[in-house]
């Protein structure tokens, strides 16, 4: 139960500036996901929080207590921060049994024997792997090792639980299981969790908040659905969502009341109320129209607000069908639920709800019109 605050954190490896002025507040009880492609600084941020890395600049507090202050070269030891960490590689000590692994930290805290045993059993019960208590890590499967690693971390009752890409070594099915397991732990323990991943599905499904990293900086902090609906710039929009969001080049003009947008698909006028605080250039300027594939509905017949386009390709996959469409020289993707079948080059009619469209400034790549 804790509130973590990072202020102006900078981290260098030699001349390599890996964290650039990171500012982040994690509220008590949050499930905060640090999301981004590999090499963007998310794991380094986690290691700074854990105390395994010392930043060259900035201040970090946990519940108002200073843990890092680069100005006075003060760095609290990892064990004094009341947190625990689950490593990507699990980092289970191969020469200890499951019991030995979990009890290690508790023994160092000099807890009484029966209390240690109780906590070991309880954390194993929570992870539903009680029967493996006397096994060695190499006698367990990857998924079981994963559970032991989490059990070891939660056994010390940390105020803050850090998870570094814990699911990346599991197969697809186990990953789905573990996602629900982690959500449940978060709810049961009420612990603040910081979770590092490059997998947007994990981020979107589990977190209460996501911090999106880009090249050592945080580009956006938002709840998952906000992040999905309104990515702050083109890069973020491109990264979030699968299949990828459609980008259509267009022209826009803002007259003080309305934003007029035109692209090969259609023309729209948007209210000023839907726009972000981002400044827009005077006169006509290049913009990018961004539409999620699931927001493009396909009809076989013409109708009101339906735009004729041609079918370029058709990929039915059981629960969903991806349809590639073409309007003029722009192509884009539509996602239909269930099976659908269209002939190639067939003309179909699509409907897009204007309120679901994002508009980005082509020059600055920033979001200028929100979806809701």
């Amino acid at each position, binding site marked *: 139960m804790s509130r973590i605050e990072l202020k102006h954190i900078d981290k260098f490896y*030699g001349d390599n500036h890996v964290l650039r002025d990171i500012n982040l507040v994690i509220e008590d009880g949050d499930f905060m996901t640090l999301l981004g492609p590999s090499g963007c600084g998310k794991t380094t941020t986690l290691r700074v929080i854990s105390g395994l890395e010392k930043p060259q*600049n900035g201040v970090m507090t946990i519940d108002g207590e200073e843990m890092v202050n680069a100005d006075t070269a003060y760095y609290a030891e*990892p*064990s004094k921060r009341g*947190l*625990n960490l689950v490593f990507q590689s699990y*980092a289970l*000590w191969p*020469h200890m049994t499951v019991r030995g692994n979990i009890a290690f930290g508790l023994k160092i805290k000099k807890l009484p024997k029966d209390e240690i045993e109780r906590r070991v059993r309880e954390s194993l019960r929570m992870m539903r792997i009680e029967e493996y208590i006397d096994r060695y890590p190499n006698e367990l499967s990857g998924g079981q090792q994963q559970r032991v690693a989490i059990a070891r971390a939660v056994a010390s009752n940390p105020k803050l639980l850090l998870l570094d890409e814990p699911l990346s070594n599991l197969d697809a099915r186990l990953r789905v299981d573990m996602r629900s397991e982690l959500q449940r732990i978060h709810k049961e323990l009420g612990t603040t969790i910081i979770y590092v991943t490059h997998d947007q599905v994990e981020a979107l499904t589990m977190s209460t908040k996501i911090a999106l990293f880009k090249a050592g900086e945080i580009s956006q902090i938002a709840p998952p659905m906000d992040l999905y609906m309104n990515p702050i710039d083109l890069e973020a929009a491109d990264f979030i969502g699968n299949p990828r969001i459609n980008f259509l080049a267009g022209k826009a003009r803002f007259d003080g009341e309305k934003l007029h947008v035109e692209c090969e698909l259609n023309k729209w006028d948007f209210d000023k109320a839907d726009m972000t605080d981002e400044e827009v250039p005077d006169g006509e300027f290049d913009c990018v129209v961004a539409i999620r594939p699931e927001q493009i509905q396909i009809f076989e017949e013409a109708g009101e607000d339906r735009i004729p386009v041609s079918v370029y390709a058709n990929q039915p996959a059981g629960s969903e069908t991806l349809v590639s469409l073409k309007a003029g020289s722009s192509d884009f993707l539509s996602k239909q639920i269930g099976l659908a079948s269209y002939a190639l080059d067939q003309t179909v009619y699509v409907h897009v709800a204007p309120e679901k469209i994002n508009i980005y400034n082509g020059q600055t790549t920033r979001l200028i019109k929100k979806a809701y």
Partner: protein
Amino acid sequence: MKANKIHRPFSSKRLKNQILNVVKNPFNIIVAISLVILFCLIVIPLLQMVASTFTVAKGELRRIKGAEVGDFTLYYWKYLLTGQMASATLWGPLKNSIVCGVFTVLVSVPVGSILGWLVARTDIPGRKLIGMLVVIPYMIPSWCKSLSWLAVFRNSTSGSLGFLEGLGIPIPDWLAYGPVAIVLCMSLHYYAFSYIHVQSALRSINSELEEMGEICGAKQPQILRSITIPLVLPSVLSAVVMTLSKSIGTYGVAANLGNRIGYFTLATKMKNFINGSPQNVGYAMSIILIILAALIIFANQKMIGVRKSYATIGGKGGRSTLMRLGKAKYPLMAFIVIFLFFAMVMPMFVLIMETFQKSTGGGYGIENLTLYNWIGSNPDLAPYYTSYKGIFFNDDFGKAVGNTILLTVIASTITALCGQFLGYISTRGRGKWYGSLTEQLVFIPYLMSGVAFSAMYVSMFSKPHLGGLIPTLYGTFALIVLTSVVKHFPFASRSGTANMMQIAVELEEAAEINGAGFGKKMSRIVLPLAKNGFISGFMLTFISIAKELDLIIIMMDNRTTTMSYLAFTYSQEGLNQMADAISVCVLLFILVCYIIANRFGADIGKSW
């Protein structure tokens, strides 16, 4: 502007925290202590030895007019490089060393590489057995090989006859002693470098690379020439370098086979100077040996540096399909059999049999056989071949066994422990200044031949230091231990590094997060995990110290004699059967150690 150089105003709190950060972490303290020790044990002796070659010593007072002890002088270098004797003291032996080194490379590298290839990549019958047998000759110390060479080829020039002369086959001096004998003897030893390098490189290269060549339509010899050989070339080159630098500095073989006919190499000549006078000339020669070794290694790094070893790059699976030899397997089998016969069977047989002979060269008839060399106790019974009792009743031998065991146990325990620590520092300090400094310091002893290295230590510790805090160690057992320990640092820390690399940093970090301090972390996590690697590293160091002759020969006297030195002196005295009997004991000792080491997963390929 570098962004990470942030200038903050001075603050005492900050300074205090910075100092605390360094001091509170025991790792930093250990690094500091290790660096100081390495500096004292490696850098200072080296500088001291260099300095002593420019300083007048007592022995030369009369020869250098008007000089006092401790004055600066170029006398020794002039004596060595331009003096009247220069061609006999330096250039002749230097030429001999280089000739022996180069020819050893020319013989041993092709032999070792072919053996490595046969074992790793072909369907030669009995591959596993061959792979096991082929490393056995390497475990026989090189000076032992020279003794068995003498047992086979000795002729009347050195008194008693060898096996072949005994059969009535006349052996000319050029075959029995001198460069040919030295080169062949060393080749039968150092082939192991090429064998181990090539074999492990081939094992790690995916055979799909070769199969691709086959799919492209290449014939077997073509694949060998244009795919396999280029891929292992870097490993072959580094084997060349090791063989060259090792064989140039080898003392035991060159002394056993060269001294009798006045054939000297740099190493043997240097030892004569260091034991005689002027000593400082000997030190100057050892500096030349060091420079020579450094040049060879530097040249190798220049050559290989750009195109590092390919070995691990293609090694995704380790799937390896064996090359079908077809008809070629018969001549290749014959090659292996001949090699094993000459490298292992014959020398061992002759060596062992000679220990039972009354007169070497007298054949194996019952009238010429005796157990005297082993258990004889009455010198009157065998007056013609020895004045000592058989080795099992010989006090010298008992003392030598005791010394050998004491030395190997103490030295290898210390070495292996230090090696683990040094390995820990260099792996955890990877990319940091202290990590690379440790690695470089530890590498220096590798550049020196055993004789040169011990010469340096003798020079350093022949007088007290720090006002008597470090006493004169000359002639003490402690100095022999210290020398053995430091000389084996490169190998021990390499095995320590390999061991520590296997322990993921996360395992330590996980312990830190769970509240373990440095001591707990080491005792509960790192040491238990390093245990097996430590034992195998220990056993390999143990074997290598037990084999050692070159390194300790300068420091030996009656009290500190080891088995290898005793065999060497008996052989020099002409007591061949006794020398052989001791060699057989050493061999047994090493084989037993190796078998134990193997139990712990030690790999002989990692010991040099």
